[in-house]
């Protein structure tokens, strides 16, 4: 039964393991995945500690239905990139295999005195020597582990050289490219000298209504993969979004100098990627959509490079953000990032920051060792590699949002972050809901915490109003109801991440995709939960408010729910969104609406009434003893 999966508390310093059942009340309140991760994170992370303090937990959590329905899991911890909330949702097969061991959650604390990896085979947890894996890239590491364990069904999450070298935006990889990408958790893993976690599990999961569940599973598959959006994802994957961003004026060219490159961006459109390099599409565990597109570079300098991706975010971050419109270069750089174990979004954007400093003459060839000219592939690859190995100026870039501390005061003015997390590859000055979502996301700059895109796909206003239960402007440039949109999607996504369902299967760009009522039905047929959509709403609130309490404890409040000055003060210079910017006064009104919807006070702190209503402290005191 998915409900009986346990949590293993693993101390790398002492090599002690303590296994606990997850109390039924806690399961019901947080489900699993991101939900339980946030619960553990809030209660086990020492307040105000340095990100590399050994006491900080690194948490792996499979969704409640991961291994039964889908394959998603979350990795969480204190973010080395921001110092605040680190959390990233990842697909592939790792989560499903982890769930099969009988553990849904691993809470890893301490620091090993030598490189180590964990091997978890059903309930047995072993500490394995990783000296021979240290320095290896992510594909080599996974292959070597699988080979030495003599089992090709082992699934591994690992860091590459970037995580080992504590590059603050290092990620954790499973398979060719599935990444717990954002917020630098690879560096947290590296700081613990934990190279990898390998899992192999075949424990059975009893299902409340097996026949009913099979029927529901098929209907769910049809609903998600059969839609127009599902079919497009199955053919092209997320690169299909790039044309939209470029032609409608919300891509970032040269670190947000412009928001479109017009026809010059066509080489990066999905159709080109597909016709020149596609090697078909594959799935994650349990998913009928198969958006994982494989590539092979067939000609030119990078001929023979194979892999998966790049996703839209990687194309835009390693492409136009760096003034790079060469398809082969962008695809190659994405693969390089996957093998180094570096987040493509933050990676591309911190490099964009360095290229900006070079353009403005704030840093020079003497500082870097070579010129940083926009779009120069060799310079990009060289600086990326120097960053991963912390060589020369790369050692400054590797500090990410903390890099300005090592530079002149003038340099600091050009860094764009929210809550210490790099600004992203999409310019959201025009799309007000998206822009607002970046500002308030609990993990810092993030388009995926809410991903409010229903006004971008042009639904009629009446439909939006019915869906959100209040007036929402159908124009993405309109401010009306956009705080509500962000709030709605934040709650929904928190529930999805806790059940273990991919964003692409749920309400993402289509309001007709899986919603709350579908999730209620899935939970009923699998684990026998009789929950209503209102219950799930409250569950989303509980998770999101728990995250908020965590960052409040680290000093985050209203003052931090803001955007870089560029968003307010520099209207988009040209293109379809010319003149668009965020109005400060209207932004503050959105914040007021948003806090009210969440039940937080005007400073962005959850009120005691909200905390009590959501039973956030109660479940801690009554059901959880470990922290004591």
């Amino acid at each position, binding site marked *: 039964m998915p409900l009986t999966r346990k949590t293993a508390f693993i101390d790398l310093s002492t090599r002690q393991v303590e296994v606990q059942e997850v109390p039924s009340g806690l399961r019901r309140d947080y489900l699993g995945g991101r939900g339980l991760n946030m619960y553990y994170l809030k209660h086990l992370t020492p307040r105000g500690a340095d990100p590399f303090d050994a006491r900080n937990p690194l948490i792996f959590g499979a969704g409640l239905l991961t291994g039964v329905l889908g394959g998603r899991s979350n990795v969480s911890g204190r973010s080395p990139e921001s110092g605040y909330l680190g959390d990233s949702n990842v697909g592939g097969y790792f989560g499903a295999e982890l769930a099969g061991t009988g553990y849904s959650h691993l809470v890893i604390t301490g620091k090993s005195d030598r490189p180590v990896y964990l091997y978890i085979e059903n309930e047995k947890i072993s500490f394995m020597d990783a000296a021979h894996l240290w320095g290896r890239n992510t594909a080599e590491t996974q292959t070597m582990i699988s080979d030495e364990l003599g089992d090709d069904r082992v699934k591994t999450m690992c860091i590459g050289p970037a995580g080992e070298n504590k590059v603050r935006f290092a990620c954790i990889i499973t398979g060719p490219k599935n990444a717990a990408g954002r917020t630098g958790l690879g560096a947290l893993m590296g700081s613990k000298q934990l190279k990898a976690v390998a899992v192999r599990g075949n424990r*059975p999961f009893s299902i409340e209504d*097996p026949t009913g569940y099979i029927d529901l599973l098929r209907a769910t598959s049809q609903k998600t993969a059969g839609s127009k959006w599902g079919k497009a994802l199955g053919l092209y994957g997320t690169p299909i979004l790039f044309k939209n961003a470029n032609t409608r004026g919300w891509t970032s060219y040269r670190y947000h100098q412009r928001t479109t490159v017009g026809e010059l961006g066509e080489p990066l459109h999905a159709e080109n990627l597909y016709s020149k390099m596609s090697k078909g599409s594959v799935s994650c565990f349990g998913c009928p959509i198969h958006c994982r597109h494989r590539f092979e570079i067939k000609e030119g300098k990078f001929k023979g490079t194979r892999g998966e991706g790049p996703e839209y975010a990687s194309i835009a971050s390693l492409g136009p953000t760096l003034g790079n419109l060469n398809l082969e270069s962008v695809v190659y750089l994405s693969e390089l990032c996957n093998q180094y174990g570096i987040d493509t979004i933050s990676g591309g954007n911190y490099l964009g920051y360095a290229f900006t400093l070079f353009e403005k003459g704030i840093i020079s060839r003497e500082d870097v060792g070579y010129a940083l000219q926009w779009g120069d592939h060799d310079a990009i690859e060289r600086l990326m590699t120097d960053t991963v190995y912390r060589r020369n100026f790369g050692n400054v870039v590797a500090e990410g949002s903390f890099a300005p501390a090592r530079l002149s005061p003038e340099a600091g003015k050009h860094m764009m972050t929210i809550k210490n997390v790099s600004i992203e590859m999409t310019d959201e000055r025009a799309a007000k809901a998206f822009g607002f979502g970046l500002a308030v996301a609990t993990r810092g700059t993030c388009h995926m915490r809410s991903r409010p895109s229903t006004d971008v796909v042009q639904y009629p206003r009446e439909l939006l109003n019915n869906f959100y239960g209040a007036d929402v402007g159908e124009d993405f440039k309109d401010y009306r109801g956009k705080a509500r949109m962000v709030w709605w999607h934040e709650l929904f996504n928190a529930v999805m991440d806790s059940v273990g369902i991919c964003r692409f299967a749920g309400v993402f760009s289509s309001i007709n995709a899986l919603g709350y009522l579908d999730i209620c039905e899935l939970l009923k047929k699998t684990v026998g939960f009789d929950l209503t959509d209102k219950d799930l709403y409250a569950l989303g609130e509980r998770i999101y408010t728990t995250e908020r309490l965590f960052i409040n404890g680290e000093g985050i409040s209203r003052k931090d729910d803001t955007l870089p000055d560029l968003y307010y003060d520099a209207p988009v210079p040209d293109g379809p969104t010319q003149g668009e910017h965020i109005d400060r006064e209207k932004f503050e009104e959105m914040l007021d609406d948003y806090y009210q919807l969440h039940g937080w006070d005007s400073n962005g702190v959850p009120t005691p009434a909200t905390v009590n209503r959501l039973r956030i402290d109660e479940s801690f005191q009554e059901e959880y003893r470990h922290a004591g």
Partner: protein
Amino acid sequence: MRVKVDQHKCTGCLLCEITCSLVHGGQVQREASAIRVHLSFLDHGHHRPVVCRQCKKMQCLKSLGRGADDALRKAFIWEGDAQIKENCAFKALFAIDGKLIHCDLCGGDPHCVKSCPTGALALSDAA
């Protein structure tokens, strides 16, 4: 009649494994499934679903003597005999808890075929 595999269409979603274990065991346990997908990610190859080919002459059962075919062809669980598994040239018998799992075609209407979202699995009349 057998489940025919087109590995070029297999995306590795494993809905077939999930379905098979649910139908026959009432629970999700992929290693108790009679179909098994060999995934190929890091070497960028094709995923490879493997399932009993329903051979007319069941070489796997040759050690059991005459008559065993008829009795076991329609059975999902076979009592263990390591030699039987080894005798299958397609490696399409799977061991779990001392027993062997064999595709019984769900009595003629295989559920894995109905769950496969891409048509990688199909019911074939040919042997």
